[in-house]
């Protein structure tokens, strides 16, 4: 584990918002193969929080809750004491950008993403999933100034940070449909 920790500085790719999860994994495996401690670092990616999304045939699906009393959808899926009142529902993975902005300064705590010199501005927005709900999300965009309200977007996973055991921690996000 110590060896893992010492290698963390050259694994800053986890905080690069412009890399796809797949690219990350490919890079990760290349790096791992060169390392003598690769077994220790080959830890599966995990979500930022339990119950945020599930993987279905290799694709992420956001989880919302449908309130049993009136059928209203809410995201995220309520957990814990209020969870019984909701039935989990997978949300559509394509929608349209409802609004957006760019977070250009590093937020104070509890923000747990890249800090200090590693911080990069990131786009956030609301995405309308037709017939379901509007969800707040990170938006993955090479040039956020080119985002447009109404543009089609698709769900993806974005590396957010790395846990102490080396596992990449993933957050859901939306990106423009190519």
């Amino acid at each position, binding site marked *: 584990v110590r060896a893992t920790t010492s290698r963390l500085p050259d694994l800053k790719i986890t905080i690069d918002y412009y890399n796809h999860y797949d690219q990350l994994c490919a890079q990760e495996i290349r790096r791992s193969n060169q390392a003598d401690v690769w077994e220790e670092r080959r830890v599966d990616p995990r979500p930022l929080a339990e119950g945020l999304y599930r993987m279905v045939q290799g694709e992420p699906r956001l989880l919302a809750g449908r309130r049993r009393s009136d059928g209203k959808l809410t995201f995220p899926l309520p957990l814990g004491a209020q969870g019984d009142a909701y039935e989990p529902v997978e949300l559509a993975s394509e929608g349209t950008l409802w609004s*957006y902005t*760019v977070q250009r300064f590093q937020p104070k705590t*509890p923000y*747990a993403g890249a800090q200090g010199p590693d911080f990069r501005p990131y786009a956030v927005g609301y995405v309308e999933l037709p017939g379901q709900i509007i*969800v*707040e999300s990170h938006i993955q965009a090479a040039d956020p100034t080119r985002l447009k309200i109404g543009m089609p977007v698709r769900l993806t996973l974005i590396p*957010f940070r790395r846990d102490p055991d080396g596992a990449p921690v993933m957050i859901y996000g939306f990106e423009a449909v190519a």
Partner: protein
Amino acid sequence: MSDVHIIGAGIHPFGRHDSRSGLDQGVFAVEQALADAGLAWGDIQFAFGGSSAAGNADALLPRLGLTGIQFINVANGCATGGSAILSGYWAIKSGEFDLGVVVGFDKHPRGAFNADPADWGLPAWYGEAGLMLTTQFFAMKIQRYMGLHGISAEALGLVAEKAFQNGALTPHAWRREPVGLNVIMSSEMVSDPLTKFMFCSPAEGGAALILASDKKMRELGLKGPRIRGAAVRTRVNGSFEVFSPSLEIERGPSPTQMASRAAYEMAGLGPEDIDVVQIQDTESGAEIMHMAENGFCADGAQEALLRDGVTRLGGALPINTDGGCLACGEPVGASGLRQVYENVQQLRGRAEGRQVAGARTAYSQVYGAPGLSAVAILEA
């Protein structure tokens, strides 16, 4: 039921005051309001007070005098000041009390507010993900509004330009230098489409009002604006509010629209009857959207009103005559009371250098997280 009047008003200048605690600034405001009315703390029957980051408001009591009066601490986010006024208004209107103080003060650390998700009933990941920022909410609300209603980025700049012009004329304002439109437009982008000069900053300050029943006011031989309407409303399904991980597709009214409607109804007045306006301008876009949400114009009409100078001092509908939050900063506990303080000065003809000639009616609206609005309508 009694009419309620504001017979005294005090303010500690907003801004940064390194040598003074928030509490010091609250004491200052109360003492100034008492002096304004020619009263002593011992005359006061009740108080409602609010502070978000500068301790308990009732810590004022040992400083002002332990007279044993009913003192209730009010906490309602950025609408704390508006909520304190409403509480004082009801206390007198009900006939239970004749004379009271509403006070708010605050002192925030520098930089944007940071909220703890658990305090808002939200999961921890929402804060960790960097999604829980009021600045993002305001930026996304105006971004969509601009798209739907054809408001330009320069309109945002015009709001800020006006704020700093008014602030330069206001003794209690923090930013007292005009800032050129070019500087505003080309300053650092904070959260697109809003630049640094388009956002207000958390700040420090205190404000206090003395409220009296009609009967008490006459007994004391005093005069003061009457509160004709006051209302607080919270969010409903379909309104777009700060700290919302999800929204319903079907849109609904905002708490500002609902509080505004209720206050107009109570006052028996409409937006066309108002002479001077203070509305929540957390950032330039908020002032633009709140112009419509409070009934002062149709959605999209703001662009022309701003370009024609209608909302400037000297225009037909002066808005945020003391520079608003943009020029005064936002000490959460005091901000809504500052708006009413400014309206009281305007209605008493004491707003030297920024006086709206012949102002008879004044409107204030303060908005706060997680989605509530407080409106007060005064008549000279």
